[in-house]
C-alpha cells in the first residue's frame, strides 16, 4: 500500500529535493515512521521530545486535518495523499 506524501519545501533537503514521495503504511503513524526510516531526520522535525506531533506542523490526509479524523491512528489506503504543512510566517 503506497501513500503519496507531499513534502513541504522545508523538509525537501531530507528527501533529496523530492516534493512527493511514496511510502507504505496503513495509518498516518506508520506512514510517518516509514518516512523516517527512508529519510532519517524527518521524525525530529515533525515530533517534539515528548513524541507528540509539533503544534506548528499539520498533517492532512486527502486535504483533511488528521486532528478532525483519527489523529495519527487515522487509517490510510493505497493512493491516499498525506500532506505535511508547517506554518510559515514570512511576509516582508
Amino acid at each position, binding site marked *: 500500500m503506497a501513500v503519496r506524501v507531499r513534502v513541504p*519545501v*522545508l523538509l525537501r533537503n531530507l528527501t533529496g529535493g523530492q*516534493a512527493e514521495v511514496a511510502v507504505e503504511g496503513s495509518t498516518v503513524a506508520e506512514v510517518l515512521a516509514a518516512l523516517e526510516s527512508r529519510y532519517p531526520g524527518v521524525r525530529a522535525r515533525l515530533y517534539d521530545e515528548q513524541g507528540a506531533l509539533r503544534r506548528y506542523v499539520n498533517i492532512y490526509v486527502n*486535504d483533511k*486535518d488528521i486532528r478532525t479524523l483519527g489523529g495519527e491512528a487515522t487509517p490510510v489506503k493505497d493512493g491516499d495523499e498525506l500532506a505535511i504543512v*508547517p506554518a*510559515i510566517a514570512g*511576509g*516582508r
Partner: protein
Amino acid sequence: MFRFTEEEIRRYSRNIILQEVGGIGQQKLKDAKVLVVGAGGLGSPAAFYLAAAGVGTIGIVDDDVVDLSNLQRQILHRTEDVGTPKVDSAARALSALNPGVQVKTYRTRLGAGNVMDIIREYDVIVDGVDNFSTRYLLNDACVMAGKPLVDAGILRWDGMMMTIKPREGPCYRCIFPEPPPPGVIPSCQEAGVIGAIAGVMGTLQALEAIKLILGVGETLTGRLLLFDALEGRFRQVNAARDPNCPVCGDHPTITELVEYDLACDLPFGVAAGSAERKIEQ
C-alpha cells in the same frame, strides 16, 4: 445616491461594469477602511491593488526603512526610496497611483500596547508581517475585536493564506496552535523568497479583502490555500474551528494580548542589514 465624479466613474469603469460591483459596490469600496500590516512583500501588492480598486482609506503599519534587498519583491518602494521609512514611500506610491485614496501611516511596530487602537477603525485587516510573534498577536487582536483578518505567509517558493472571520471559522491558532520555537522555521531573510510569490499571495489577499468589503463570493474561511510555485500547484486543505482554541474557542484561556519573545524576530531591516554587511566584508 452615489457620490462619484466623472473621473471616478471613468477610473473605476471596469469595476462598476461587473455585476458583483456596480455603483453600490464601488461605493462600498470607497467607504471601506483596510489596514495593511507590513509594507513589504505581501503588503506591497495588497495595498497597490486595494488603492487601485478605490478602497477609500488604507492604513499602512511598518516601522522599517527601505533597504536595497527589499526591492526584489517589495514593489511599493523604488531604488530612490532606499533609507526612507517604508510607510512614507508606500504612501507616496499609493497616492501617485490613486490620489483619491486616503492613506494613513503608522510608523511603528505592532505590539500588545498599540494593536487594538490601530485596528479599531478598520473594517478589514491584511496581514503582511514577517514573523510569528506579530502574526499571533494580530490574530488574537482581530479575534478579540471581531475584525476579519486576511492572513498570508510566504517562504522560498511557497505561500499559504486563509481568511479569518472571528467565530465564523477557524483562526490562525485553530490551525497552528503555537508558534514554533525560534530558529526552527527560517525567515525569508535566512531561507530566501522569490519575489513573485509575494506578488501572488499579496494579490490574493487584496482579492479577499475586496470580496469581504463587497460581500460577494466565497472567502477562504475554513480553508487553507497553499501555493507551491515550483510545482505550479495550488491546493487547499480544510481547516475547522477548534472549540478548544485558546483564543477563539468556547472557553478561551487567552483573554489578554500576549507577545511571544521569539529571539529570531529581529526587525527585518536590522537583521538584513547586518547580514549584508557581513557579505560585503
